[in-house]
């Protein structure tokens, strides 16, 4: 029994928006919280107007520039954060002395709410994309770092000894055993780290910028335009879904060697 779920899922979405529209319609539902019948629409927005706003964005093309900026920031933050996390994870994983020395610092940095660094980055890197990239990097770095560190620590000693007996020197062990093992952990954290890069980009834009979807939301909020705020959120959500889908595709390609739940074939 394999039924496609997406028509049902889509129907559910339509129901939610319809209910939203009806409940916020001035005068349609008797106001029992607020005296003013327009209040519900003021606080929660009206889906129809949101879609109009989104339509307008795409119709005149203004949204593309902002989406592009957000995508750029996300991708850069992900790449830079991943590379740094990979390098540090390998280094600390292979050097017990360094990891013992730096352990309290890493714990402290990870525990710190790094979003508060955003204003500092803005001072350092200005209002352009780089302050957002920097924020995303601090978020991505720790996820990748911890995963890679774990990956290095959990290399099977038998696989390692086997490679040694096959003649691998220290450099070859790093390249042929530690690195593949660490990157497999990196790929398995792909969803989380791409998500974090996205969060860094949007929060950074929201706190101060001249472009990006976060900026659009921030502008609309300044004008109490709740419909445009929600429109921005919907666009971001759709964008996140597309990103996640792309990551899923990449993951399936890169982790081909991993036993899957259903695709394992025993011969």
């Amino acid at each position, binding site marked *: 029994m394999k039924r496609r779920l997406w028509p049902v899922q889509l129907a559910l979405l339509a129901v939610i928006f319809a209910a939203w529209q009806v409940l916020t319609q001035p005068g349609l539902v008797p106001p029992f919280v607020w005296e003013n019948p327009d209040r519900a629409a003021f606080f929660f927005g009206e889906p129809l107007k949101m879609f109009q706003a989104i339509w307008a964005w795409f119709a005149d093309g203004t949204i593309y520039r902002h989406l592009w900026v957000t995508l750029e920031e996300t991708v850069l933050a992900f790449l830079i954060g991943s590379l740094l996390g990979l390098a540090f994870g390998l280094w600390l994983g292979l050097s017990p002395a360094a990891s013992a020395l730096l352990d309290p610092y890493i714990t402290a940095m990870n525990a710190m709410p790094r979003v508060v660094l955003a204003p500092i980055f803005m001072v350092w890197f200005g209002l352009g994309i780089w302050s957002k990239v920097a924020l995303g990097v601090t978020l991505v770095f720790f996820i990748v770092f911890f995963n890679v560190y774990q990956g290095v620590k959990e290399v099977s000693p038998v696989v390692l000894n086997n490679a040694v007996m096959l003649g691998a020197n220290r450099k070859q062990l790093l390249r042929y055993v530690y690195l593949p093992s660490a990157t497999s952990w990196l790929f398995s954290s792909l969803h989380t780290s791409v998500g974090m890069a996205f969060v860094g980009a949007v929060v950074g834009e929201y706190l101060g910028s001249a472009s990006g979807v976060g900026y659009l939301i921030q502008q609309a909020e300044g004008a109490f335009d709740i419909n445009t705020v929600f429109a921005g959120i919907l666009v971001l959500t759709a964008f996140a879904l597309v990103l996640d889908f792309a990551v899923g595709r990449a993951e399936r390609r890169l982790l081909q*060697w991993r036993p899957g739940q259903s695709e394992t074939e025993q011969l």
Partner: protein
Amino acid sequence: MAAAVSFEGITCTFAARAGGPSYTAVKDVTLSVGEGEFVSVVGPTGCGKSTLLNVAAGLLRPSSGTLRVLGEPLAGINRRAGYMFQAEGLMPWRSALANVTAGLEFRGVAREEARRRGEEWLERVGLAGFGDRFPHQLSGGMRKRVALAQMLILDPPILLMDEPFSALDVQTRSLMENELLELWSANRKSVVFITHDLEEAISLSDRVIVLSAGPATHPIGDFPIALPRPRDVAEIRLAPGFIALHDRIWHSMKEEVLKGYAQTRNRVAG
């Protein structure tokens, strides 16, 4: 003629964790494996068989004693030996072919050449056409074949094998044993084969060495196996000579096996 591998008074003592007494796994072991000889080492579980093999491989430095490889004392990793581990040693992120050719790659053999020889070895262990599978897509027996090819492609003069077939089912196991014998007889390498299975030891070997129960394991018996070759491991078990040998060796082992059991039980209880 120098022996392929000789243990001279090897003792291995492991420092204890958390202040307990230190543990002497292997004590004063002297034995040698001649060139081209197939020697099995049997002993009760947990008696330090693998420790001895790790010493021979150079993965473990003995506390005292000397290990000689072809007459020379060993320092560092034993580059003349191939090692087949009991547990899975294949790199899970590499295809079967890439696993087989790993050793060649480490030695800087050209890609094309490595690939050609890898395919050849896959065919020799009966895995032609499975080169692009990942280890998780292969059965346990096939993974062992890949491990065997991975070791033999480097053509090491000494083979160290640590219960390589213990995880396989009986049928696959005797198949693999026959294949091993066939590959071995083609160009006689010196083999140290560790097992807890006496029948396996007798049917494969030129000589069977019996170890005492741990701790402080040492050899307590050395039995030449004068059965004719080539052998078929399933058929040779029915030969009258085999049964007599089995009886004799088992007799010398029995007490140690019981000792080993009692110790394991005490360790679990205590």
